[in-house]
């Protein structure tokens, strides 16, 4: 059995290295000043796809990413590690998309791709931490979803058995294909870039990049067609412009607040049962724990 796998990945600002001017006045992230990286949990998703491909020979991994032209880097990174192909969804009308608009655009692109058995994405992106895009795509495609996946135990007879990592343990679930899964950071780490693939794909570029780049290796793009990265715009995926970008995004950021917990007062308890009981009752009463 071979699988058609689609991986959803996002280029995100490296929020672990945030400078002073990282947030715009309107509360959105100032992407231009932050270095960008492959969203960490999307790398876990990618590894899950690779391990499926190793188990089910003949499987094909297609990577889908939406973003500005420089997000082509995500496709290259995927190629360096072993995906078969990738599409960059890029268009001015996509700018400012919230999770609703993003999932719509991804949904339209997946419809254009057509066949798939499993869609894998990271649980959430580190720039928004919403964990909504994966589930919304599944809803739009009207397929089941398994979130917080750490491991896929098996895929047999069109059924998948997966382990979900939850707060208090592991849940094992079974479901019909096709399906969408979102993957936790606790899943296997992504394999490194591969030395042969890096050399094979390092010149891979989108049309946009070829226009602005140097013209040294232009003839290569005819000889090695796989070096031409595919971009899709709104028209290519037949998207309704109104449902994309700002106009398709009901989310408006009102205010960003930096919440820091501070010690107000401190009290001492001894370790007797009555003292502990008294303390717990007080916490329940204060709604500190429920």
């Amino acid at each position, binding site marked *: 059995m071979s699988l058609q796998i689609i991986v959803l990945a996002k280029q995100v600002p490296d929020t672990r290295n945030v400078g002073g001017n990282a947030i715009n006045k309107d509360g959105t992230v100032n992407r231009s000043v932050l270095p960008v990286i492959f969203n960490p949990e999307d790398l876990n998703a990618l590894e899950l796809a690779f391990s499926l491909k190793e188990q089910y020979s003949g499987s094909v991994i297609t990577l889908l990413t939406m973003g500005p032209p420089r997000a082509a880097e995500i496709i290259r990174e995927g190629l360096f590690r072993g995906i078969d192909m990738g599409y960059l969804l890029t268009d001015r009308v996509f700018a400012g998309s919230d999770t609703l608009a993003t999932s719509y655009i991804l949904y339209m692109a997946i419809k254009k791709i057509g066949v798939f058995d499993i869609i894998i994405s990271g649980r959430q992106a580190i720039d928004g931490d919403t964990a909504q895009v994966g589930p919304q795509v599944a809803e739009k495609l009207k397929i089941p979803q398994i979130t917080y996946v750490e491991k896929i135990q098996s895929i047999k007879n069109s059924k998948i058995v997966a382990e979900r990592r939850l707060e208090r343990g592991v849940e094992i679930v079974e479901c019909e294909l096709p399906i969408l899964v979102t993957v936790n950071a606790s899943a296997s780490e992504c394999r*490194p870039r591969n030395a*042969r693939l890096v050399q094979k794909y390092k010149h891979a570029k989108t049309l946009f990049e070829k226009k602005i780049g140097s013209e040294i290796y232009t003839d*290569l793009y005819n000889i090695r067609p796989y070096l031409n990265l595919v971009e899709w715009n709104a028209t290519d995926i037949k998207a309704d412009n109104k449902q994309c970008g700002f106009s398709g995004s009901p989310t408006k950021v009102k205010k960003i607040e930096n919440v820091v917990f501070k010690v107000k007062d401190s009290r001492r308890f001894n370790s007797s049962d009555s003292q502990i009981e008294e303390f717990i009752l007080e916490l329940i009463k204060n709604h500190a724990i429920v």
Partner: protein
Amino acid sequence: MANFFLDNASLKYHLRHNLMKRIVELKERSFIDKNRFDYAPVDFEDAMDSYEMVMEIVGDIMANVVATNAADVDRLGSRVDNGRVQYASGTSRNLQIVTKAGLMGLSMPRRFGGLNFPMVTFIMASDMAARADAGFCNLWALQDCIITLYEFGNEQQHNQFIPRVCCGETLSMDLTEPDAGSDLQAVMLKAVYDEKENCWRLNGVKRFITNGDADIHLVLARSEKDTKDGRGLSMFIYDKRDGGVDVRRVEDKMGIKGSPTCELIYNNAKAQLCGERKYGLIKYVMSLMNGARLGIMAQATGISEAAYREAVIYAKERKQFGKTIIEFPAVYEMIANIKAKLDASRSILYETARFVDMYKILEEIAKERMLNDTEKLELKKYKKLADAFTPLGKAMNTEYANQNTYDCIQIHGGSGFMRDYVCERLYRDARITNIYEGTTQLQIVAAIRHVLTNTYLNAVKEYQEIPLISKLDNFGQKLLRLVEIYKQLVEKVASTRNTEYIDFQSRRLVECAWYIVSGYLLLIDANKNFNEFGCSAVVYINYGESEVKKIQNLIDTFNIENLKFYKFNCDN
């Protein structure tokens, strides 16, 4: 994310040496592979760019996987279970990741699944591997054995073994025996031709075999009945898939615990002859050892790098008497010396690797077509230089790794003696480097020939022709004076024609050669990139000068008659 390639500007500097243009052109045979392999470079810049990108992968894996596993691997070591080696879990993981990254078979031709990368890049990967975990560096660097199989094995053997190595199978070279260490002529492992099965059979014991449970072994064995010396030895390939070799024990060692050192029992093990009979030691093992020595030079350099980094981190953090200790002259001088010896090690390492690349690639080309006159001259020149620089650099870099890790602990004070800090592992790991693949004492034996026949002096002449920037003039002058002292010392010792006395002083003469050769190399580095190497050049040349003058004092005032006081007298 940490990256041992990107955080170390000196690596990119050495990768970008002028001679690389020639090396790459030869290695890529004018880029003929570009039409056959989708990952082959199309021109020089493309190749260099690929090297950098692949070194970046190595730097990533070494920093984020191998280095983080190193402490556990050091504590767990490897064990033997039912005749087979069980690696520490971290070691298995390291091997798995390196294989998935497609790094195995780095230097092999593409038709076998290799990357066709030059020796310089392979050595650079070893340099980074050793910085992460010197024990793992051995498992990585042993893939170098495949070069010997490629050089001397036949087409069938190439097809059988090289693709497997490129897919991640490991190698070992089985040379040492209980009674044959430095003296490999005494090897006894018996090879007998089995007429019925049309193959060779090996019987006997090998000892101290690094990664002795590898998938593919190169074995030195006695194929010629009734012989006792090196001319009775041949080289064999043993394939673990055939069975017949068991691991009797894994040594409990002081350091490099991630690299299992095995005692092997050969019980009628099936083997293939590699190359011609009787050339085992005199030709093939010499080639194998030269490669391995270069590998150990890299290992020592990587350990020095780690020691330098650990020393700096600690000295900048630790406060005593109201100051960080790095502000005290006693400490900053130690750190400056570590850095200078590290940079000197790295300079001679890559200089040697380039020489090896040049002659090995030309030798390979000579099998495909006639070399032209320029190429013939190049081959001769670089083979001789590689021959001279390998023992010199092996002795120097491994002694420096020991000194640097020793000083690194000293900077840590009492804390450095505790297992909480990395430096104690580095110290233990460094200790083997000047012993295995030929002790320093044996490197001196190989290097003294080149002292007496002026190979180093001739090499230095080329370095002297490079015009220096004005702020380095003084140091160029200093080195010129050291060269004069060196010439006098060599003349003085050699003119005695007393073999024992020459042997007695040879270590000192070889040391003078290394201060001069690596002093010049660092001077040239500083000349090209003063910001990166200026301090080290100054510190190192000062240091070298004081060492050469100590040696000068001893040799100048030494009375040969006094040699007797040094000799151990059994009657005493």
